[in-house]
């Protein structure tokens, strides 16, 4: 092998390594989090617990992460349902300011939350998917603070396949309904149906009911 060929080969390897390094730079490492809060009927009384989850999430999120909180009501597939959203700045100090502002907005919402007559969870999920796909974070997580009982108003079509590829869906504080107490199979089948729906869409589904232990979150 001549010296020129050797140099060319070394240069080619260098270029490949540089490109590989650049490629790694472009891989997103941030997190996108979307929290859906069920405000329908009796579950609205649980909303104050959601604040705790939001604060935990805020403390865990890092600069460049995206976070949105939206409510689930009769028609959830709309931007109007988003209570607060932010993509935290790259600089830690600015990100802290944003977190404080976010927390105060959420607090205001908790104080003013009114119960909704219907529960459109799928609409909220679709909105969450759209939001997170737009932000394109490295890790996408949707938290659903709800009893997972969907109750659609007349005329709303939600029988739509969900594209949840690369998403983690976490159902939080899934309370048991009165009817669940009569027949627990109802509760299990409800959770199973959501699990199937999410996994069919390519996502990963899990349930966290003990909100005092949110270590597994994010």
């Amino acid at each position, binding site marked *: 092998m001549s010296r020129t060929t050797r140099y060319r080969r070394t240069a080619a390897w260098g270029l490949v390594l540089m490109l590989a*390094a650049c490629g*790694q*730079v472009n891989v997103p*490492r*941030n997190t996108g989090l979307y929290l859906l809060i069920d405000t329908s009927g009796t579950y609205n009384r649980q909303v104050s617990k959601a604040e705790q989850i939001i*604060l*935990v999430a*805020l*403390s865990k999120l*890092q*600069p*460049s992460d995206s976070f949105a909180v939206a409510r689930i009501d009769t028609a959830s597939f709309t931007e109007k349902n988003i209570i607060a959203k932010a993509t935290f700045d*790259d*600089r*830690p*100090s600015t*990100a*802290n300011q944003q*977190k*404080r502002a976010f*927390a105060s907005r959420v607090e205001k919402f908790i104080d003013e939350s009114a119960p909704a007559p219907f529960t459109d969870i799928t609409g909220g999920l679709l909105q969450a998917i759209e939001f997170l796909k737009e932000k394109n974070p490295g890790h996408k997580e949707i938290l659903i603070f709800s009893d997972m009982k969907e109750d659609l108003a007349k005329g709303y079509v939600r029988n739509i396949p969900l594209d949840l590829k690369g998403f983690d869906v976490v159902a939080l504080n899934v309370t048991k309904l009165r009817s669940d107490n009569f027949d627990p199979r109802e509760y299990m089948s409800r959770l199973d149906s959501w699990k199937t729906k999410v996994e069919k869409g390519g996502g990963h589904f899990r349930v966290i009911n003990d909100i005092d232990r949110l270590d597994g979150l994010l």
Partner: protein
Amino acid sequence: MSMTSLLAITPWPAVSAVILLALLVVALYLARRTAHQAIRAVTDALGRGLRLASHAVARGEERLAARNREVLLSAGREAKERIVEREFVRVGDSVRKDLANYPTLHRALSESIVRIEEDQEKAVEVPPEAPGWVQAVKVIANLDAKNGGTEILEDIHKSMIRAHSEAMDDYRKASGERHALLRKMMPDWRQIQETLGRVNKNVESVLERALAIDRHMQEYDDIVKGEDRAVSILSSSSLVYFFVSALVLSVAAAGAAINFTLIARPMAEMVGGTSFIGNFRTADIAALVIIMVEISMGLFLMESLRITRLFPVISALSDKMRRRMMFVTFVILLLMASIEAGLAYMREVLLQDELATSALLRGDGVAGTVNEHLWITTAAQMGMGFILPFALVFVAIPLETFIHSLRTVLGLIGIGIMRAVSLILRVFGNGMRHIGTLAERLYDLPLFVPLWIETRVAANQNQPPLPEEPRSPAWQEQEAQS
């Protein structure tokens, strides 16, 4: 063919086994000579190969040792040259300083001596003697009393008393003046004594330096001659320098780590906290780069000051250029240190901000509590941020020693490894010969019956049994060598 079918050659398996064994023994006996040759050929080849490899490694070790010796002597020579050069510079400075003072010294001495001489001359002057009345008194005493000799004598007596009194006064005055002059000489004498003492001290210092230079020159001469004693001293010194410099470098590395901790967090404010280069945060890399630049500036500063000599180009620069470089590197270091102090302050601010946010998110009221002694840690961090870059400048000295001694230490380790490998190969090479003999004996073990018969037949025929296979000449050569 399976063992069962082999044992079925006769209706009785035991008989079949005996027949098979006998056939095997006969076959082995017939192939004995060839088998021994094959065993010897294999073990000879392996042994020869191993010994050859051992010789090659030993030669490599010798070459490495020679090279290491050269490196060691060269490094020692260079170090001695530097020491001698420095001693000469010191002697030169001392002589230049003394010679510069010499005219003043000489003038002071001359003036003191002139003054002493003058005073000496003045002190030598004696008062005039009393008039010579004795002859006149004798003549008058011989005169007759009638001629008024008595009166004259009385007058003379009176005049003499008066003259004596005057002479005494003059003498006392002159003596006083002489004593005063002698007293005036005292400071001059002291000054001369002090000046000569200073000269003596300087001369003694130069003599001491000359003795040190003599000693260094003797050692230098030993190194140039390549004497074993010099090599041994240099080798042990090199090991000591290696461990000491490694220790100091590890301390410096700890300092650099603290420095890194101080500036990594605030760097995230400058370059962003979430961008990555490869698997590393850009902020961390930026902080590391700042520290590396500081260390580099420290190296250049030390090179410009000619304390270290890692870069011959810098040492070869003109004094003017070196002074400029010194100034530039120092200014850059100062700026870096100031930036670091600022970043350290920023770190504390960010930390407080983060704590306040965390407290707010946790919902406790700690956010409002401000530690009144917080300024101490802030000031300490700023101080460390400012001082550490300057402290890291001195890393250049152990680094230079480490690099120089590392070469020798690596050489010594290499020599040790090669020596061990050579020994192991040699042992295995020799072992192969014995393994060959052992294999032959093991081959002969099942053939004890035909061999016994052969010996008996040979004895009956008065013929010696078959001689042992002679060893190959190569083995004999190697044995002679070993």
